[in-house]
């Protein structure tokens, strides 16, 4: 799906209220699906000084992230990747929150935070190594303060909390963002991270992308009440934000990060959004959800709404969009080429990095493996 086609699509029904479907509670929204800027007394100030350039930047981030994601999906279809977990539909949640972070902040992602990785400056092709099967995490977490993807659900929320505890000990004013999903909210580790961060008043923002689904299970299988409310019982605030509104996500995350920096402890942000695609390329969502739901969310497309706002406010012209389209295509090409050029790891990589300081058994097995490999080479020699 190109950006052009997204941008051209018309909203199927008006969802321009500040409320999500009737049973759902209020959420923070600064941009309606139609791209109208609505006032919000509490959060406006966090985006008050935003420049047209920055707004275009957010748009660009979302478009390029989506393009990258689409490329990865097609690379999977072509057999270049073993698997891909698409972020389609969650661009605003990720770019808004990602752009709220400061360079010295630290981010703990799940496996779907490609947009956040983008904001942190992780080269997108580096994300693909693990999905191609050449490594289990192909970047240095400390280069961009962006942890490796964590596949086992919920674990990273505790690492984030510990890291944040360390920030406090250092007397620094950095903060941490821990990403997790609606499904993850059920894991004991997530609850324990709430407890630890509250007790130690750790500077961590828990950013829950409630994309309505945990593979085939809707959020009702995880909770009876909106997830942002979970925080209260642990003694810190929770807020629900329109996860398809990049401005609102930016503002709310900035607010939460400021609280963290000011020593006010953790915050839970629930970004109410939607997983537009399959769970991963291995998944078949037609088995468990209808198309209407997806369509209703298409009307709330995060990229479309910012485009409308940029156009209506004359913050971007055709030239900008055209240039971005070209940049987008170039990114796709670059990623495609980078992935295809990614070498398979050397066989001896099996024995690398199990330990930092070495381990006698690993040495022994490496030597046996080398001898075994050599035995084939010998055969070849005859």
């Amino acid at each position: 799906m190109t950006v052009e086609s997204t941008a051209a699509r018309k909203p199927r029904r008006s969802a321009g209220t500040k409320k999500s479907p009737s049973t759902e509670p209020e959420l923070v929204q600064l941009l309606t699906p139609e791209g109208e800027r609505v006032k919000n007394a509490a959060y406006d100030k966090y985006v008050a000084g935003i420049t047209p350039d920055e707004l275009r930047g957010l748009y660009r981030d979302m478009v390029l992230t989506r393009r990258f994601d689409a490329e990865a999906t097609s690379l999977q279809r072509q057999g270049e990747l073993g698997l891909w977990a698409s972020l389609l539909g969650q661009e605003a949640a990720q770019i808004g929150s990602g752009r709220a972070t400061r360079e010295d902040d630290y981010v703990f992602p799940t496996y779907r935070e490609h947009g956040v990785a983008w904001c942190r400056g992780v080269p997108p092709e580096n994300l693909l190594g693990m999905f191609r099967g050449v490594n289990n995490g192909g970047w240095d977490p400390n280069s961009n303060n962006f942890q490796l993807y964590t596949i086992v659900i919920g674990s990273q929320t505790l690492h984030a909390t510990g890291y944040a505890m360390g920030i406090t000990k250092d007397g620094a004013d950095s903060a941490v963002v821990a990403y997790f999903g609606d499904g993850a909210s059920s894991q004991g580790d997530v609850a324990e991270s709430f407890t630890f961060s509250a007790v130690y008043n750790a500077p961590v923002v828990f950013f829950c992308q409630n994309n309505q689904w945990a593979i085939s299970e809707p959020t009702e299988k995880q909770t009876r009440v909106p997830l942002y409310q979970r925080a209260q019982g642990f003694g810190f605030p929770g807020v629900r934000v329109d996860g398809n509104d990049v401005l609102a996500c930016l503002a709310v995350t900035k607010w939460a990060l400021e609280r963290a920096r000011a020593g006010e402890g953790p915050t839970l942000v629930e970004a109410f959004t939607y997983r537009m695609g399959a769970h991963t390329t291995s998944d078949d969502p037609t088995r468990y959800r209808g198309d209407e739901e997806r369509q209703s969310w298409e009307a709330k497309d995060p990229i479309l709404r910012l485009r409308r706002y940029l156009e209506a406010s004359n913050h971007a012209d055709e030239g900008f969009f055209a240039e971005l389209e070209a940049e987008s295509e170039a990114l796709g090409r670059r990623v495609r080429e980078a992935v295809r050029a990614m070498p398979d790891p050397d066989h001896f990589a099996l024995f690398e990095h199990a330990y930092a300081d070495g381990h006698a058994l690993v040495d022994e097995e490496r030597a046996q493996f080398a001898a075994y490999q050599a035995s084939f080479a010998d055969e070849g020699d005859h």
Partner: protein
Amino acid sequence: MAEKMALAKAINESLRRALESDPKVLVMGEDVGKLGGVFRVTDGLQKDFGESRVIDTPLAESGIVGTAIGLALRGYRPVVEIQFDGFVFPAYDQIVTQLAKMHARSLGKVKLPVVIRIPYGGGIGAVEHHSESPEALFAHVAGLKIVSPSNSSDAYWMMQQAIQSDDPVIFFEPKRRYWDKGEVNTEAIPGPLHKAQVVRAGTDLTLVAYGPMVKTCLEVADAAAEEGRSLEVLDLRSVSPLDFDAIQASVEKTRRLVVVHEAPVFFGSGAEIAARITERCFYHLEAPVLRVGGYHAPYPPARLEEEYLPGLDRVLDAVDRALAY
């Protein structure tokens, strides 16, 4: 009633039969309902037996096993799915501390007929945590029984028996063999759950394996036969208890033993088998028991798994080494 079916389908049919014949049987886990599980092993069951018996659970493995224990205390027989091998560890405490020990703790008063299904092992090109073989981490713990079928018929019957067992059973499903087809006779009378089976008779050396490696060992035996060597292949089927009598009987005949599993060699099943068989067959063994398995390293990324997993060549190499003594 013999029918050819894939191993995954055999488990599906076995679960269906259990749900039909005993109203206390429940199926529970993440995505086991409408989706039918990520491998479709529970396909169609929720549709036919309803949400009260085939239960999509919250995403919390400790919660799944912990509530299954409670349901068993109430008289149910839950069959729990853990989505992938690497996701069983959040439930590890409930499994080793509660599920395994409650029968003993209650001096036999309480029975916990819980089956934990775990698709395990590698070879499917998956991302991290989706290819592990953690059976040794459960076998060390008393109170659990651990089995792993290698073929459709065993998958069907061993699941029936696991569900009927009054002890907790961890049922390791060889995920890379899910699509392999085999004959299933749904009216047969199966042998005991924890007995090994000679799946190929031979005289020169015994290969023992379970789950996914049985097929590999049969291929090894074929290849060895071409070189004039007669290998006996024993499908252990059960990791706890281990059928040492069957291994011993074979080794007393062949005098050489190679154990093959995907799990790391270090502290793996092969260690226990080698130690005990060496004790039992000290004067029979012409060669030390050799082990072929994973290395002492985290399961590697997919592009390296072929080097990590025991394959034809590595097993043959061990066979050659054993025969060279």
